[in-house]
């Protein structure tokens, strides 16, 4: 949490509302990097000052080993809960 210690937290209600703008698929909240990750699109959307920036041209392209393959996504989601 050292990287994001000063970042204001994201409004939890936002996490319920947001999907990837490109694929309309689910997003994964990466607390450590303070990003919203779309595995389907292979993009990570930054959160700046507690505001998600859902612009495709501002998103970070995921490295291949970063994206969670579809067969593992469901498990991972359950782990988060």
């Amino acid at each position, binding site marked *: 949490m050292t990287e994001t210690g000063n970042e204001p937290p994201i409004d939890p209600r*936002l996490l319920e*509302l*947001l*999907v990837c*703008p490109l694929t*309309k698929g689910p997003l994964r909240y990466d607390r450590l990097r303070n990003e919203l990750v779309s595995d389907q699109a292979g993009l990570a959307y930054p959160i*700046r*000052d507690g505001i998600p920036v*859902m*612009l495709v041209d501002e998103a970070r392209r995921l490295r291949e080993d970063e994206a969670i393959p579809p067969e593992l996504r469901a498990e991972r989601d359950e782990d988060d809960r």
Partner: protein
Amino acid sequence: MRPMTDPVRPFDRRLLRLRRERAAPRLRTGSFLHEEIAARLLERLAEIRRPLPRVLELAAACPRLTAGLAAREGTELVLRLDNVPALLAGSGPAVVAEEELLPFGADRFDAVLGIMSLHKVNDLPGTLAQIRYCLKPDGLLLAAFPGGGTLRELREVLLLAELECLGGAAPRVAPFVDLADAAALLQRAGFALPVADREPITVRYREPLRLLRDLQAMAETGVLAAEARRPLRRTVLMRALELYRERFATEDGRVPATFEILFLTGWKPHPSQPRPLPPGSGEIDLAAHLGRPPGGGQCSRTSGSAGGSKRAANSAQPSRPGARITLRNSK
């Protein structure tokens, strides 16, 4: 040949973002035109009695609108969306995103509202479809943006000045959606009970240059894709301002600028909404009411049309003697 405006993507959204970024400090203190449109939108919203707990505000540049929405009874969340972070500073949940690529799942909001947002999206039908997608069933879309004859004075003098000085003209004032098309677009995007209406707002300026300053302050100067490649020359601009005064100045020396604001209202379909009965299920014979024998209308199409038999040319008219049209009022 000069590159033409891409008919599919007429607007340069990146340029628009730059303009909004630059205009952010002034926009956030409230432009008079935005405030006026916001006030009219809130008036319309006041006629809708039911609470709208979760509201999405598009192009959230008007603090007055946000405050007005939050003050409504039953509002739990007003989420502000803009494509420029600088416009979202301050308290309250916010998201940076493009209206053309909305980052929301299905059935999330009770209402999507916005002023001065939808006139510069490249794909209006697609944007409306995305708005419908993220609305809950029976959710409300209420949007106000300039359409039709907006800035027609400016459009005219820029065209004239450019023709006069350069012998050719580039598009300067954005194409706007016409009222008739707006309603059709709503329907095409699958909104129920679509309504589009317009309210003209005429602003009277001491100087045409002040209009341009205002447009700049509202980040409403041109963002046409072709325009970026062909900047407006100073001599042309000066001539245009001269023509503006010559052609439009009133007795008191002021010049008018017309804004024709379209208000779009639509609802995401829901079984509780009134709807027309299926064709053929009516009980009143319209032909009998009009006092004409069934199928006795006139057809203006000539019989020589390509491949069209007489039968096909007549297809717009009731083909069965018993065809009826009935509308049912709200249930």
